[in-house]
């Protein structure tokens, strides 16, 4: 079978169309040739490595999980319409088709209305903040991310109401406490 083709000879095949009888009998050289052809290996200069500091800075763009955790501790629910008792004389599931929830995370107020429609749930959320803080860019609903519309509202619908919610603002991810969607029963007398 003879000696394997050298790198120089492989390039002669690619660039000049030279023929070497060895190539027909040697699957190794054909394999090498195919990769050289497909990727111009050794013809392209190697890619340059950026300075480490630049890479660290690019990595830091992503909000760190530790920051997000510290925020989770600060979040508290400040209002839930389902915890308000029905007026005297009102019975049944009245009010279950709607819910309004508010969370406070530092100086941010996450305000969400949920409406149970025939086929699904509709959600409209708004995130208020003092002017000196960055606006929320995304609301996280489980794995989905919802962007704000032109009016700054986060609107989405889903078949089931979400248990995990959060939002992204500046360099922080704010995870809200897990939500339950069973209306609490009135206390027994």
């Amino acid at each position, binding site marked *: 079978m003879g*000696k*394997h083709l*050298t*790198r*120089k000879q492989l390039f002669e095949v690619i660039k000049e169309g030279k023929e070497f009888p060895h*190539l027909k009998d040697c*699957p*190794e050289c*054909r*394999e*090498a*040739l*195919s*990769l*050289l*052809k*497909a*990727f*111009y*290996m*050794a013809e*392209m200069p*190697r*890619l*340059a*490595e*950026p300075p480490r500091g*630049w*890479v660290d*800075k*690019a*990595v830091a*763009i*992503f*909000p*760190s*999980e530790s920051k*997000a955790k510290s925020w989770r501790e600060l979040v508290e629910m400040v209002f839930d319409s389902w915890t308000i008792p029905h007026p005297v004389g009102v019975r049944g599931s009245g009010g279950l088709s709607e819910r309004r929830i508010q969370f406070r995370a530092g100086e941010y107020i996450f305000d969400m209305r949920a409406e149970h429609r025939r086929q699904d749930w509709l959600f409209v959320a708004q995130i208020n903040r003092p002017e000196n803080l960055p606006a929320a*860019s*995304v609301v*996280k609903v489980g*794995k989905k*991310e919802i*962007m704000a519309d032109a009016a700054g509202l986060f609107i989405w619908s889903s078949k089931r109401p979400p248990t995990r919610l959060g939002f992204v603002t500046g360099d922080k*991810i704010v995870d809200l406490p897990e939500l339950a969607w069973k209306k609490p029963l009135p206390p027994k007398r």
Partner: protein
Amino acid sequence: MTFGIYLYMPRTDKEIWQDILDGRETAWKNLVEKYKALIYTICLRAGLSMSDAADCFQHTWVSLYENRTRITDPSRLSAWLVTTTKREALRIRRRAAAMVDMEEDVQYADKAMLPDELLEGLERQSLLENALKEIDPRCQKLLAEFFFAPEEKSYEEIAAILGINPSSLGPIRRRCLERLKNKLIESGFPDVRKVEDEAL
């Protein structure tokens, strides 16, 4: 020549992207490590100064982060990064030129500076280098000696560097190429198979 630290990254861009959307910081870090050299090389090829190249590099990543919910096909992430880096590099060049009133010259030079063929070549090179990092270190070294060493070495010389018998070098090289090829196919470059068929 070495290919850096052996990183075990058997995951596709699509999977990494899903982890990023789920808020996993390590996934973002993996992505930056994977494409840092490609982005940096494009910034340099655009003829930017080091400080402008630093801006170009950083803005590209910021842009990806800000647009993360708009990426509809994460399997084409490298193409998205190439296009964004090119736009960013050209924007910085124009901005710099506007300050010295040379905009026409720069626009003319832009076309020659980052032609599509060059960018495609760099994207392929990035794919190749990432695939090489995903195979075992012995194969990385062997293929580097065969195909990337500045001076071509004989079978005997390469065998001596790797500490193996020259007669077993051929079969080992074949296995290494097979592994590399499989990684490249996994990465979504069907050309490898096509070109191999042509060669037969």
